[in-house]
């Protein structure tokens, strides 16, 4: 968000006359800004930073919440490396993230371009309706999608049968279940990202598009040479946020396949890292092991988000 607002602070800085700095003000006024932001930081320390650091601490223990706890050092992490369930969850997490994020952002970009079209009638209606999936409850969405994808009674398989194909057991297979969850995630977040792109597209002067049209640029050329470059800052933002969100998908795998408890299927075929964490921490009360998974997940999200940020900004600078 700050990226899109970057012109504003710059303007403020230049318009701020130097005399303010020389005025002798009381310590109260100098402390005032800190006092204003303090509530956020206090809450952040209590509910954000402390739990984060405490998780690192718990990860070093064999910790039964209602029984004994022993210091085990890095044993939880060593065990994690040799746990096939962990590597399975890792594979599922990345696969679902890629399957959901990439198409979702590409579609959002295209839809934003279309919604920004000058001759679009009832623009507000269309722009608002893309947000409907976002305001729908995740649980409701998941239950409906699980029924659509059902092996024997789902609508999707009904269509497949009409077309002469045999039924596909989406929930039971690895790729089927990943595809199903990715569809849900994309369905929910595409509209949200579309609106972000649209908001920043509207800041692009119409004259650019008109001039390009006059020069004979077609829709695709306008999209490629005006829309995409204009949106680069917001694209960076959405890539980073959807990476952070996409690697922590939880509700969909929890609810889509309740068979087998917290494993998202009998063979853990769509159990993500967050769900594995939940299973270990709160299903089996292995707080230490759960915390170790959380730490790994945290490190992984930071690394992937950084790589993404670097990649996307590098593409930006190269094209310039």
């Amino acid at each position: 968000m700050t990226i899109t607002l970057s012109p504003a602070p710059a303007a403020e800085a230049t318009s701020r006359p130097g005399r303010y700095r020389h005025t002798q003000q009381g310590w109260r006024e100098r402390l005032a800004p800190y006092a204003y932001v303090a509530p956020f930081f206090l809450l952040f320390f209590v509910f954000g930073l402390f739990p984060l650091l405490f998780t690192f601490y718990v990860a070093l223990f064999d910790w039964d919440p209602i029984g004994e706890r022993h210091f085990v050092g890095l044993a939880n992490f060593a065990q994690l490396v040799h746990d096939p369930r962990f590597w399975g969850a890792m594979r599922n997490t990345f696969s679902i993230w890629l399957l959901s994020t990439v198409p979702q952002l590409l579609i959002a970009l295209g839809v934003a371009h279309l919604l920004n079209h000058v001759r679009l009638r009832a623009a507000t209606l269309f722009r608002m309706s893309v947000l409907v999936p976002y305001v729908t409850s995740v649980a409701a969405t998941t239950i409906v999608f699980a029924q659509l994808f059902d092996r024997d009674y789902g609508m999707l398989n009904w269509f497949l049968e009409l077309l002469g194909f045999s039924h596909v057991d989406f929930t039971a297979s690895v790729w089927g279940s990943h595809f199903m969850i990715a569809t849900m995630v994309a369905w929910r977040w595409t509209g949200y990202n579309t609106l972000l792109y649209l908001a920043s597209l509207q800041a692009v002067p119409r004259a650019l598009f008109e001039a390009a049209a006059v020069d004979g640029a077609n829709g695709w050329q306008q999209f490629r040479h005006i829309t995409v470059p204009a949106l680069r800052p917001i694209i960076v933002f959405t890539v980073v946020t959807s990476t952070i969100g996409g690697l922590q998908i939880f509700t969909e795998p929890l609810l889509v396949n309740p068979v087998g408890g917290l494993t998202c299927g009998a063979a853990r075929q769509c159990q993500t890292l967050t769900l594995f964490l939940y299973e270990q921490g709160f299903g089996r009360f292995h707080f230490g092991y759960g915390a170790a998974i959380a730490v790994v997940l945290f490190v992984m999200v930071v690394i992937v988000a950084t790589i993404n940020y670097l990649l996307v900004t590098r593409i930006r600078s190269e094209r310039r």
Partner: protein
Amino acid sequence: MKRLINTAAVVATAMLLASACSAGSGGDSGSSGFEFWSFTGINQKADVEVYRKAHPDVPVKLTEVGSTTETAQALTAALAGGKVPDLVLIQGDDLPKFMRSPENFVDLSTLGADKMKGDYLDWVLKQSTTADGKVIGIPTDVGGMAVAYRKDLFQAAGLPTDRDQVSKLWPTWDAFAEVGKQYVRATGKPFLDNTPTSIFFQAVNQGTERYHDADHKLSYDRNPQVKAAFDLTLKVFGTGISAKQSSFSTGWTAGMSKGDFAVVSAPSWMLNSIRTNAPGTAGKWDIATIPGGSGNWGGSYLAIPKRAKNPRAAWAYITEMQSPAGQLAHFLSQGSLPTTPSVYTDPQLVGRTDPFFSDAPIGRIYTQSVVNIKPFYIGPDDATIGSELLNTLTSVEQGKVDPANAWDTALTNVRNALRG
């Protein structure tokens, strides 16, 4: 509309009581009320209402926390350092985890549980009694076993429909599979909802030992009874009588409403699940005895946390509502099976029938399945072992694991799960 008013009244009462409680707890530590955590969906309110009517001076604050698992999670969090209730309902599968740390709970024998021991099925009470004789929970109900079948579909397949004749068809699980094959030949449709839940979870609970040996050591990988139940499940799956619909999945619910399978193994609490998931099939079901004759799956316990503010009031509630008479009244109104064998011959229980299941005498059928049970030790890891074995068998049904490798895969999965 009437229900709405009732609900509103209950909510209003609960809120009044809540405010009364919080007002009272400020200064008056000797308050007579208590706080009670239970599950959703079992209509605990009805029991609490009965108690409130009998004791208008005792404020009971009932919180329906969530599912059985969610209630256990909330209890864990509370025991670890939050505000604990005075009384809590724990599902049988979750109990062993809490039994591992008995110091978190009041030893109920200090309150008088030792005098009531004779009232309850010994094998049920044994599960909530520690090795050194501390009683952690009083059993509220058991999940006796039976088989629910569709009379209309049996008739169409040329099978007998009378529940006594059907029960005679399958004294053993092998005979059960034979009936299934006959059904499939006659109708071309699957017979059973699935094999992992309807066969394995029933058969493995019918043995004399489960996942531990007599010395309470883990023996799931060498106990021939576990292996036999596992192999039986694979064998029945091989006959092709399964609809391969995992219990409680969306396909299972849909298949049940549409009559795409004719038989579901039904622990007593499952009846409610059939009733709510397939309301359109009312009157088409009936209930026969389970192959193998006996078995239990499920059941719950009432416990009092150590830090409870008012353990006396909670204990008074237990002694009144979980007495043989109290459990009989609960069975007659709610249908869950008493743990007190003295009422099993009561004419009210024996005569109890259920119109949804063609007036089957559910009291008689289900109590038969629990009186002859030989108790086996249930440890803290039993739930994990059970779900890993079940999941592997489900993978077999879904075609993801070759039946020939299923046992080895299952053992590997259990070992991984126990390590973590």
